[in-house]
C-alpha cells in the first residue's frame, strides 16, 4: 500500500510504473541540465560585456600610448589631436568634465537631499507614493531633450544674470544636468533613510524633537553611508553624461575652472569625433578610446566606492 502510493507521487503520472519512470526521469534530468547551462550562459554574458568594454578600451588605448607618452597625456595643457600641431593633454577635457559635474552636484545634492528628507520624514505615505514616481519621470526624459532645454531655455535665462556669457557654457549644461540627477539623489537617499529603523525615530520624537531635528540629528547620520552612496552614484552619472554637455557646453577643449566659459568634456569630445570622418585606426580614432578609458576609470572607481558604502550601511543597525 505504502509502496504503491510512493511510486504514483514520484512519477506524477498514475499510469506509469516504476519501470517506465526511470527513462522519464533521465530525460527530465538531461533537459534540466541543458536549461541550467543556457541560463548560466545568459548570466555569464554580462561578464563578457565587461570584458568587451575593458578589452576594447585597453587595446585601442595601448596603440594610442605607443605614440603618445603618458607624461604628455597627463601634463600637457592642450588637447588638439585633430590640428596640424597636435597636442594630447587630457587635462582640458578632465577640467570640463569636473566643472560641469560640480555645477550639477551643487544643484542636485541640496535639492535631492531636501526632497528625500521631505518625502521620508514629512510626507504621508500617500504623498510619498504619488510624488516619487512623478519625480522619477525626470530621469526618464531623453538627455538630448535636456540638451535642447539647456541651450535654448536655461542658457538665455542665465545670460540675463551673466551678460558677458556666451550661448554655449558649462553653467547651463551643469544646471540642467543637476535637475536630471535630482531623482537619483532623492530616490536613493530616501531609500537609505527609510531603512533607518522606526525605533530610532520614536526614540527621538519621545525626547521632544521636531521632525527636522529627528531628520537631521538621527535619521540623516544613521543613513549616512547609504546617502553618500547616492551622492557618489550621482557624481558618476554626471561624469558620464554626454548629450547635455555635447549640445550646450560647447565643443572646444578649454582648460578652465570658470563655469561661465564654454568647454568640452571627455564625453562631448567622443561625440564630436564620432560625428566627423576620422578614419578607423588613425590616431584621431584612438584618442576617443583614450578619453573613454579615462572616463571608464573615473566612473568605475566612483561605482566601487558607492558599492562599498552601500554594503556598509546594510550591515549597520
Amino acid at each position, binding site marked *: 500500500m505504502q509502496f504503491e502510493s510512493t511510486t504514483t507521487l514520484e512519477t506524477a503520472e498514475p499510469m506509469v510504473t516504476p519501470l517506465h519512470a526511470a527513462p522519464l526521469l533521465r530525460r527530465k534530468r538531461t533537459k534540466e541540465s541543458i536549461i541550467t547551462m543556457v541560463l548560466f550562459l545568459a548570466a555569464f554574458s554580462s561578464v563578457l560585456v565587461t570584458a568587451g568594454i575593458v578589452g576594447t578600451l585597453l587595446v585601442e588605448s595601448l596603440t594610442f600610448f605607443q605614440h603618445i607618452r603618458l607624461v604628455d597625456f597627463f601634463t600637457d595643457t592642450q588637447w588638439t589631436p585633430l590640428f596640424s600641431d597636435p597636442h594630447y593633454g587630457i587635462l582640458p577635457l578632465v577640467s570640463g568634465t569636473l566643472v560641469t559635474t560640480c555645477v550639477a552636484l551643487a544643484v542636485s545634492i541640496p535639492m535631492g537631499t531636501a526632497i528625500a528628507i521631505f518625502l521620508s520624514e514629512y510626507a504621508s505615505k500617500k504623498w510619498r507614493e504619488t510624488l516619487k514616481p512623478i519625480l522619477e519621470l*525626470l530621469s526618464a526624459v531623453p538627455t538630448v531633450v535636456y540638451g535642447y532645454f539647456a541651450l535654448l531655455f536655461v542658457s538665455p535665462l542665465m545670460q540675463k544674470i551673466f551678460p558677458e556669457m556666451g550661448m554655449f557654457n558649462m553653467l547651463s549644461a551643469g544646471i540642467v544636468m543637476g535637475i536630471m540627477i535630482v531623482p537619483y539623489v532623492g530616490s536613493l537617499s530616501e531609500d537609505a533613510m527609510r531603512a533607518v529603523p522606526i525605533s530610532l525615530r520614536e526614540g527621538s520624537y519621545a525626547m521632544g524633537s521636531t521632525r527636522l531635528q529627528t531628520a537631521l540629528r538621527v535619521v540623516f547620520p544613521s543613513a549616512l553611508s547609504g546617502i553618500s552612496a547616492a551622492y557618489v552614484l550621482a557624481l558618476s552619472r554626471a561624469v558620464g553624461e554626454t548629450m547635455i554637455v555635447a549640445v550646450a557646453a560647447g565643443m572646444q577643449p578649454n582648460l578652465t575652472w570658470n563655469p561661465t566659459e564654454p568647454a568640452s568634456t571627455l564625453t562631448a569630445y567622443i561625440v564630436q569625433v564620432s560625428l566627423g570622418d576620422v578614419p578607423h585606426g588613425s590616431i584621431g580614432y584612438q584618442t576617443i578610446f583614450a578619453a*573613454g578609458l579615462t572616463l571608464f576609470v573615473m566612473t568605475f572607481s*566612483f561605482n566601487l566606492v558607492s558599492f562599498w558604502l552601500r554594503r556598509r550601511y546594510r550591515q549597520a543597525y
Partner: protein
Amino acid sequence: MSNVPSPAPLNASALTPEGMLSGMRANIRSRKVFDGLFGVVAILALLVSILALVGLFVNLALQGSERIRPEFFLSFPSRNPFEAGILSAWVGSLVVMFVTALVGIPLGIAAGLYLEEYAPKNTVTNFIEINIMNLAGVPSIVYGLMALGLFVYKFQFGQSVLSAGLTLALLTLPIVITATREAIRTIPNAMREAAYALGATRWEVTSHHVLPYSMGGILTGTVIALSRAIGETAPLITIGALTFIAFLPTPPVSTEAPYLSFQWIWDAFTVLPIQMFNWVSRPQEEFQKNAAAAGVILMFMTLAMNGVAIWLRARYRSRVKW
C-alpha cells in the same frame, strides 16, 4: 543642524510651573520655525523639479507645435526646415528597438532567472552579481565605444541597425536583470516548495510558477528599459549612426521569393534622438523648431512608456493575494 537657538531656560525645576511652561513653549516655537521653514524649502525643491518637467514639455510644445503635422512624420530630413521630417528617424528607432527587445529581453530575463533561482552561492555567482552592478554604472557612451570597436569593426557588422540594436540591448541588460530579480524575489518560497513537494523539477517550478507570477514586475522593468533605450543618443552616435538619412531600411517582406528578407538589419540608420540632436546643433532658428517638435514626440513616447510601466506596476501589485 546646530542652528537652533536656545532662548528657553533649561533648568526648569528651579522655576515656577508657569515660568517653566512658558519657557518651554517659547523653545518649541523657535524650533518649529525651522521645522516649518525646512518644509517650505523642500516643497520648493520639489516644485522646481516638477515645474522643470512641465516647463520642459510646454517649452518644447510651444516651439515645435507648428511643425507637428502629418507631413512631419512622412518626410525625410531636408535642407529646408519647412520640409524636413522624421520619417527615417522614427522608422529607424522602431527597427533598432525591435532588435534591442528581441535580444535584450530574453537575455536579461534568463540571466535574472539564473541568478535568482539557479545560481549556487559561490564566487562565480558573486562575481557575476558585482559585475552586473558595475555594468549598470558604466556611462552609455562607453558602451558605444565598445560597440564601435567590437561590433562595427571586429565583427564587421558595420554601422548598421544590428550594431545599434545590440548596443542598446547590452546597455539595457542590467535594468532588465535587476527588474526580473526583484520581481522574482517577491514570490513567497511556499509557492516553490508546494510545487517541489509534488515532484516538479526546477525548470517546471520556474516555468509553471515563478515566471508567470513575476510577469508583472518583469514587464514593468522591460518597458522602463526600452523607454531608456529609445531616448539614448550618445552610444549610437559613437557607432557612427548617420544624421542625414533619406531612405528607409529594406522592407522585411517582399512579393518575390523568399518573401522574407533580413537585409534591413545591415542597413544604415538614424534614430529620433539623433535627428533631434542634429537639428538642435544647427544655428538656424527654423531648425530648432524641428528639434522641438522631435523633442515633443520623444518626450511623449518616453513619458507614455513610463506611464504604462507605473500602471502595470500598480495593476499587478493590487492583484497579488499572498
